[in-house]
């Protein structure tokens, strides 16, 4: 297990997540993809923390987890409120602010 393996794992997760963000139209699926993107960053932070032998990377992962929890709560509240108005979670139905 070398740091390069962490790069490969992180890159694969980021690739899958970015593909999902671009291709999917369901807002909940978009959130899943966003969580995958955050997790790919976490993998790389843990890998670098182990490479350098200090724990600052893992402390940063802790903060990323807290921010991800906050993002999930606020994002889901927005999605539920939007669903109440539009009866849909498809991003193409949320085009009110588009010119």
């Amino acid at each position, binding site marked *: 297990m070398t740091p390069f393996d962490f790069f490969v794992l992180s890159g694969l997760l980021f690739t899958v997540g970015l593909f999902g963000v671009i*291709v999917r139209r369901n807002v909940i699926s978009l959130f899943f993809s966003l969580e995958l993107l955050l997790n790919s960053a976490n993998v790389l932070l*843990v890998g670098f923390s182990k490479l350098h032998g200090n724990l600052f990377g*893992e402390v940063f992962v802790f*903060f990323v987890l807290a921010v*991800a929890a906050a993002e999930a*709560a606020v994002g*889901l509240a927005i999605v539920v409120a939007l669903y109440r108005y539009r*009866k*849909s979670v498809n991003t193409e139905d949320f085009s009110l602010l588009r010119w």
Partner: protein
Amino acid sequence: MREVFFYLFAFLSVAFAVISVTHKNVIKGGVSLLASFVSLGAVYFTAGAEFIGIVQVIVYGGAIVVLYLFALMTMDLKSFGKEPLRTLSVAVGGAISLILFASILYAGYKFYSSGITAGISGAEEIALPLFYRFLLPFEVVSVLLLVATVGAVAVGRREE
């Protein structure tokens, strides 16, 4: 032995991530995302980051994904409708993803030969930098969580 489990759980997490992104049913996608996060926690364990592995399972698996699944229960799944697969967005998404994957591998290639120090970092080891060097960010994160909770309640409230 650690290597074997590292590769096994890394493969599992990527496979479940692919299922969760590509599956048509959102509930099944959420459950497979849960499996992906738990496998990722096991990956952290094999790398020696025990505290992060436990927190990954508790926060991501136990809190965030379950929150998504609870929110999905309040919606009518039949009203979600079909998502037509457009060739253009698949091609653009695949191309951008592959370019980014290649650049991440290119950036990481110089670490190919260096090994990692396999120290175990549990709660005791994490506590020292967290509560001394990063005490102020820790407090700011608690304020952030409070603001996020109040904001989520305020946004999700039904208007009279």
